[in-house]
């Protein structure tokens, strides 16, 4: 028995593809807040981590499932709204459930919402998914803005915060950063793990050839709906962190701008590997905070729109694709063929 247990433990690291550099990055992320100011810890660090988690849910759907869903921020916003509706908020409009019931309920409702979106959108495939999920996202935005019974209409909810647990106020910079880091690490690990599971392999096979998988007896639509559900859990987690940091949730949280931003983040980083969304989020958050030094802060969208356009035009696989191409170029001794090699 001991031999079995012993052989199982070390096999996990190679199974997740862990290499020494991963541990270096992890160690750097853990000691990062010790060297950084609270602004850098929360507004930059934690923000990158949870935006990355929401974008990661899109990367999972798009990269492994071939379904580019624009409603991931909508799912995140739904879970965030549930934190306010089920828990407590400053308008005293919440149901006032304790934190240990609110958080799982919010994640569950966000996930159910994602599954419903999945059931609707897998009726058609490919490029249609973008249109349907965008329509769902915008419709949900208009709905929350007009609905006062549940979503409190235009003003939304304020006064949301994580619970005080074990004597720690989780909204303080350091705890909030580590909370975000833990969620991001778990999500990243979960996506890597699922992508190598039987389910993940089947999902990627469905992405490549749905008809053949159907003929082999796989339930194609069920796989896709489950993928939406799994991505829904990730998006809900990210959404809850999002509203905890901002302290409020309103229709503006799930407006077309934030919805598109998640796509921008995922595509900027690259949809091929789960690290992509975090790289994209880092670029996005840094640009948003420091673009003021470059251009008029009002024109941030022009900058991000241009950056997005340039990346999409020169590298369909985002920054990750650029990196791989640069590596191919370096290996081939600087020839043009090496640059093109990874273009695919």
């Amino acid at each position, binding site marked *: 028995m001991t031999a079995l247990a012993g052989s199982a433990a070390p096999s996990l690291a190679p199974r997740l593809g862990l290499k020494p550099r991963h541990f270096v990055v992890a160690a750097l992320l853990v000691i990062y807040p010790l060297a950084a100011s609270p602004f850098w810890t929360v507004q930059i660090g934690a923000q990158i981590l949870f935006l990355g988690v929401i974008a990661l849910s899109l990367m999972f759907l798009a990269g492994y499932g071939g379904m580019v869903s624009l409603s991931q921020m909508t799912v995140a916003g739904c879970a965030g709204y549930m934190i306010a509706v089920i828990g407590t908020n400053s308008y005293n409009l919440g149901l006032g459930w304790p934190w240990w019931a609110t958080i799982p309920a919010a994640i569950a409702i966000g996930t159910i919402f994602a599954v419903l979106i999945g059931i609707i959108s897998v009726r058609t495939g490919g*490029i249609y998914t973008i249109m349907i999920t965008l329509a769902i996202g915008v419709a949900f935005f208009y709905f929350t803005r007009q609905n006062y019974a549940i979503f409190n209409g235009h003003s939304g909810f304020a006064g949301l915060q994580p619970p005080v647990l074990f004597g720690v106020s989780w909204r303080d910079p350091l705890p909030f950063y580590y909370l975000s880091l833990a969620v991001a690490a778990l999500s990243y690990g979960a996506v890597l793990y699922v992508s190598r599971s039987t389910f993940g392999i089947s999902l990627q096979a469905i992405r490549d050839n749905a008809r053949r998988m159907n003929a082999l007896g796989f339930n194609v639509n069920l796989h896709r709906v489950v993928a939406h559900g799994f991505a829904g859990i990730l998006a809900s987690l990210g959404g809850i962190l999002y509203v905890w940091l901002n302290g409020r949730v309103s229709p503006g949280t799930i407006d077309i701008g934030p919805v598109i931003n998640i796509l921008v983040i995922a595509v900027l980083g690259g949809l091929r590997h789960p690290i992509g969304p975090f790289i994209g989020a880092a670029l996005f958050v840094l640009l948003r905070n420091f673009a003021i030094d470059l251009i008029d802060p009002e024109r941030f969208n022009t900058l991000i729109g241009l950056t997005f356009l340039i990346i999409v035009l020169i590298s369909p696989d985002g920054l990750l694709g650029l990196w791989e191409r640069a590596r191919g170029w370096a290996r081939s001794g600087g020839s043009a063929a090496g640059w093109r090699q990874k273009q695919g």
Partner: protein
Amino acid sequence: MRLFLLTIMNGLTLAALYFLVASGFTLVFGLMRNVNLAHGSLYLLGAYIGYDTADATGSWFLGVAAGFLSMSVAGLLLQIGIFRHMVGQELRQTLVTIGISILLADLMLAVWGGKTYQFDPPDWLYGAIRLPLVRAYPIYRLALLGTSIVIGIALWLFLNRTRIGMMIRAGVDDRAMLSASGVNTQRVFAITFALGAGLAGFAGVVGGTALSIAPGEDVRYLLASLVVVIVGGMGSVTGAAIGALLIGLAEQLGLAYSPTYGVVFTFLIMVAVLAIRPQGILGRPA
């Protein structure tokens, strides 16, 4: 009874506007498989340019022409400059249109600001007309309905009775075969894109006159186009007309009888159609 008729009339005129916007969207999609998510931006940009032209020249009709022409040229430039270099890469094309829409929305905000603009249509289009049962109804909206029907018929004739229309329809069915029979498909694509984008700009001025133009309208009409073509069937102009009718009527009836949940009705129609006919009412399976 009067409220009901008035609502139906409003629904019809809104449907007319939706058809104008969505027909261009569905035309481009049907031929090039390009989901142009910048279509709403073309609508709003056409409206702004039309407004400036009408303001400078004092002629509303010149404004309409400017809206159509400027967006046709913009569409032509987009097709020739960007999309023809990524034929067959549907996702990439769509992502590019998203980038363009982000960029355009922000640049339009920079140039025209957050103000709401209102057109001045010619006097004879202004005011109300007496109709049986509904009593007074704005002439302009009736003119909009008429224009939309005329354009719908013209579009049908263009697609079904002209040589270029024939090429476009052949391209929708089989692009490779059309190309193999010696047709310059890039030219057909460019014409279609110019026409689709021009229709968006035209709708911008005409629709902006019926309602108003302000930031955010681009998203509204993008959503309308999306839902209309999802319901009507992608790539079918007749489908766009049916979809526009359903959505326009549902939106106005919802607004009149259940204001809070107006959006939900349009959404439910979309879900119902997807559940029964995933390819849309007149769409063909991909």
